[in-house]
């Protein structure tokens, strides 16, 4: 088939708050192809896709479609250009019917705005038949399975005659059979001359479906190759191949008894049969891709969203953790991933934030002892080297790194035996990251048991005594310090095939 360039991207870059997440991406997408975008978490593939779809605007760079320059200024503009983005969790109007979701915004109403119900329903059925799926177009979206909702979004893309359809991790919530249906449709669309961009981690699927693949790493495009010529190992190497910086963080901690033991922890559908242990003085890493279920496990251990089944033992004793105050009482601490919503009290002072988890320590007969609050906060500022102008200033005025230090400080005051850190250095400058690594090492030397959830492989490799890897809700590997390399971790983190665990 005679392929032409559909989209040409040159020099596409994107900055968020001064941090460049995408740099100088040059990429051509051809008509009539299925093109995979691969890369680690935060490598830039999603950002690039969102730029194509008009969700973000590039800081630099140009886009051309059919040779002519285009500006994708909004999702609406993208749709008009014939570019559709299908989200993993499809966006829809849950209370409207399938037919209505398909048709909303098409503007085909009759006089006085009368909706052509019959015609719309007929068109909807037509589209469903085209896709070969059996969905009752009159039922509300709310009842549909994710697979069906995706089909509806694809149908919308067809209806607006989209030439470029971007699918963001579409197969994660699908059964193998649904995946096959999706693939068959994708192939048909490709044969019609459309372009499909397939963002995924599942290498087997990429190999089964895609014609070419582009790998992103650290915000840059590493390479674009024909899928046929690539091995898994090649792909993985492209995804992570970077000189492993040698952080001098080989801490010398004496590893003692198991402080935290978890057996058979399950919460459907987030994670299944998780068993792990963290010993005193040990730093255990929990690696995996986004959606693997690591945060869910942490939240279950800490009582934020308890598991359905399974046991937890702290310091050798069986415990029930029904809510976070239970957890704190048992000596657990949890620094959450999303500090903006689950961590900081944005408008309140830094010292209030630091002392938020230890009411007993700052209370004098129920009253707040301003002196104790000040003292505790000051000691944290010293120990963790928090940069601020005043303890009384609102914490949201601090930079991300200092906010994170303050949250860590909050938890350290509870003197925990077990510390669970969820992506503690995300969004933090390199210099401050190094400080964090030192702190984490020091905490381990202090005898604390640390469970470190992270998506940054170098970080895990530098700090952890052992690395556990999760994929799609299950534990897939346990690697000792010697066994752990970026390749071996990534191998275990990448799902083998839909619905299977390694």
């Amino acid at each position, binding site marked *: 088939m005679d392929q032409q360039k559909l989209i040409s991207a040159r020099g596409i870059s994107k900055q968020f708050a001064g941090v460049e997440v995408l740099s100088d991406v040059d990429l051509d997408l051809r008509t009539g192809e299925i093109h995979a975008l691969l890369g680690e978490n935060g490598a830039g593939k999603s950002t690039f896709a969102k730029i194509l779809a008009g969700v973000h605007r590039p800081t630099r760079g140009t886009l051309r479609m059919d040779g002519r320059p285009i500006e994708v200024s909004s*999702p*609406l503009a993208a749709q008009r250009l014939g570019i559709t983005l299908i989200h993993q969790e499809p*966006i*829809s*109007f*849950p*209370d*409207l019917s399938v037919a*209505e979701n398909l048709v*909303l*915004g098409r*503007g085909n*109403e009759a006089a*006085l*705005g*009368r*909706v052509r*119900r019959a015609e719309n329903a007929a068109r909807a059925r037509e589209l469903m038949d085209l896709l070969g799926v059996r969905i*009752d177009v009159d*039922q*509300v979206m*709310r*009842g*549909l*399975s*994710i*697979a069906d909702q995706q089909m509806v979004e694809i149908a919308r893309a067809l209806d607006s005659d989209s030439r470029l359809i971007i699918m963001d991790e579409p197969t994660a*919530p*699908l*059964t193998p059979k*649904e995946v096959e249906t999706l693939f068959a449709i994708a192939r048909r669309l490709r044969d019609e001359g459309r372009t499909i961009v397939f963002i995924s981690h599942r290498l087997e699927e990429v190999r089964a479906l895609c014609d070419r693949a582009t790998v992103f790493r650290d915000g840059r495009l590493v390479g674009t190759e024909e899928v046929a010529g690539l091995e898994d190992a090649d792909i993985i190497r492209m995804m992570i191949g970077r000189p492993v910086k040698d952080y001098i963080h080989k801490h010398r901690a004496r590893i003692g008894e198991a402080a935290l033991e978890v057996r058979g922890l399950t919460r*459907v*559908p987030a994670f299944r049969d998780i068993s792990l242990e963290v010993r005193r003085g040990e730093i255990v890493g929990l690696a995996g891709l986004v959606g693997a279920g690591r945060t869910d496990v942490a939240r279950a251990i800490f009582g934020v969203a308890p598991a359905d089944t399974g046991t937890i033992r702290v310091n050798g004793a069986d415990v029930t953790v029904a809510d976070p105050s239970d957890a704190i009482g048992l000596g657990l601490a949890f620094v959450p991933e999303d500090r903006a919503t689950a961590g900081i009290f944005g408008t309140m002072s830094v010292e209030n934030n630091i002392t938020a988890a230890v009411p007993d320590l700052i209370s004098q007969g129920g009253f707040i002892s301003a002196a104790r609050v000040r003292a505790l906060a000051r000691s944290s500022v010293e120990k963790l080297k928090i940069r601020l102008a005043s303890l009384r200033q609102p914490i949201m005025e601090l930079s991300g790194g200092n906010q994170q230090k303050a949250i860590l400080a909050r938890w350290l005051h509870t003197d925990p035996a077990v510390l669970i850190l969820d992506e503690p250095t995300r969004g933090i400058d390199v210099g401050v990251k190094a400080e964090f690594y030192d702190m984490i090492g020091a905490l381990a030397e202090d005898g604390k048991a640390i469970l470190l959830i992270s998506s940054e492989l170098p970080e895990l490799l530098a700090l952890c005594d052992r690395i556990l890897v999760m994929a799609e809700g299950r534990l897939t590997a346990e690697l000792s310090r010697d066994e752990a390399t970026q390749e071996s971790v990534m191998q275990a983190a990448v799902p083998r095939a839909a*619905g299977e665990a390694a």
Partner: protein
Amino acid sequence: MRDFVRTLIHRREAGIFAMLLLITALVGTMEPRFLTLETARIVALAIPLILIAAMGQMMVLVARHVDLSIGSIMAFSSIIAGMMFRDLPDLPIMAGVVVAIALGTGLGLVNGLLVVIFKLPSIIVTLGTLSLYRGLVFLVSDARQVDPQFIPRSLISLSQTSPVFGIPWLVIIALAVAVATYLFLDHTRLGRQIYALGSNPVAAPLRGIKVVRVTLLVFALSGALSGLAGVLYASRFGYVNPGITGVGFEFTVIAAVVVGGVSINGGVGTVLGTVLGVLLLGLVSVALPVLGVSAFWQDVFNGAVIVLALLIDRTVRERSTRALAQARSSG
């Protein structure tokens, strides 16, 4: 499972209908004189004003807002119309109706503007305008009521005469409003946009829905219908009193709408359900005195009904979300 949610909604209307039949049967057995045409007429007359305002409130709720000021809007339109009739005795009643609707629309627009411009929660805004508009009612009327002798006979006759089957004009007007609302909400683009906006306010602008316009529209319509209810109040009751007309009206209307299956969270609700909800509350309000239960239980009933409807709402949503999660996990 896919039909699960849809059937639940259908069950809601069927459920209300069943309750209607049940209550009629129960009361009828205890007090046979309940089952007469006379009762039907009384029930029919009890509901038109509530029904008209409920159509407006329904649209506001579907758009994920709330309008607590409808009683005061109703009173304001009512008193102005009444005063016009009093001071201009030869005024055709249509003029009064038009003015009432226009005033209602205006006051409704004020609500909408406050919500949209300042991004304030509609419940607090309309709590304020509830009071503000009520104050205006007293101000313009000098706290005096418009006595029965000033209400035009032709207006009052709307509640008494009937073109067909003994059904008063008033009821026919109310039913016409209901039908018009149905046609608007279910069969026009704007109507569907109201549902879309309430169903997913975040996605709405992404699909080309002009959020500001639609929001202003629902508040304006709610005001307009409250205005209509206001001028018809004079027809039904024969007078307008600044301290009585429309007081507590909003709670009755909200109760009826919520019973009828309209969700506080927006996006859900049918005209049929709302009509049935209004009927149910109207039926109960007539049935209570027949049974010898003091009319004082009316508010208890209304309040309990709101709470129950909210609980049912919540349970339905939770069940459907859980069902979705199960379906996903079995993949």
